[in-house]
């Protein structure tokens, strides 16, 4: 992410007004996405909604600053790795339920910690929310990035 006071002001992207406001708003959007994911078992929301919000912050940056600037911060291989990591985490939670609870996807942590309505409660549900949020956010960012790369015909390619 870019630092305060160092807004790149080249020819790429939109005007200075859009760039300045996007660089302020992105922090709020990312914080809101993280809140939606972490409180997914207490308030409306969850992994899918929070992941979409996280991806939308990067899409906003891509619209305001251009694709190359976003690719420097979150490159395509890194986003792909985050995507795979989220999917692997969610599958591992299911397999751990099989190992410790006896059934695939059983909530084996529900009695171990916390009371209902606390932040640390509900067993594997917050962990699943975090994994799904990571996965959905990286996936939607990847879709936008790939579509924006391929729109230029033969000239555009990536490694």
């Amino acid at each position, binding site marked *: 992410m870019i630092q305060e006071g160092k807004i790149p002001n080249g020819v790429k992207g939109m005007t200075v007004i859009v760039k300045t406001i996007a660089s302020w708003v992105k922090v709020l959007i990312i914080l809101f996405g993280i809140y939606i994911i972490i409180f997914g078992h207490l308030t409306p929301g969850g992994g899918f909604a929070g992941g979409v919000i996280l991806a939308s912050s990067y899409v906003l940056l891509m619209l305001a600053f251009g694709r190359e600037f976003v690719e420097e911060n979150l490159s395509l291989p890194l986003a792909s790795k985050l*995507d795979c990591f989220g*999917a692997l985490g969610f599958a591992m939670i299911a397999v751990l339920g099989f190992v410790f609870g006896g059934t695939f996807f059983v909530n084996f942590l529900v009695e171990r910690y916390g009371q209902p309505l606390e932040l640390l409660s509900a067993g*594997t549900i917050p962990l699943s929310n975090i994994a799904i949020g990571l996965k959905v956010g990286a996936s939607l960012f990847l879709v936008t990035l790939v579509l924006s790369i391929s729109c230029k015909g033969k000239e555009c*390619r990536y490694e």
Partner: protein
Amino acid sequence: MDMAIFYILLLFIIIAAIIAVETDNLLSSVICVGAIGFGGSLMFLFLRAPDIAITQIVVEVLGLIILIRATIARDLTFITGDREFFGLVVSIVIIFVIFLAGIRVFETLPDFGTAIFSKVHDAASQTYIQKGLEQTGAANLVASVILDFRAYDTLGEATVLFTSIIGATVIMRQKPKKLLEELD
């Protein structure tokens, strides 16, 4: 009785799958794939999962329309003469039967605004509502359903998203195509 219907549906799906693989006509194959989907939807209905049955029907109709649109230019055989009249009669009879069945279904629907599960006392949703908090510890009932009671569904959704991302990335990339052209 329910199990007998279930096994008949299973046999129907297996036969449709074999025909879909073995037939030469592409349009017949697509229609057999659609029959598999509708059979699966009926099976979900008998397994007391009407919401998944509705989802299956919607996805199946959309996929069938797209597949027929993609294959209709290739394998289209026009029917003329007596067989045209026969086909017309059969179509009208089928539409009439579906119309009557639709009227019968609409008569049995509950009033607008009341939950459809209020008529079924041992429905799964009652268990979710009454025991969701104590069994999963999650205050958000939606989270307890999608990540605990029906986590398989969420795993399937995540897999669909993952597969679609892989497909988009593979189709959109340019470099391996050039490598393949160099190899030829």
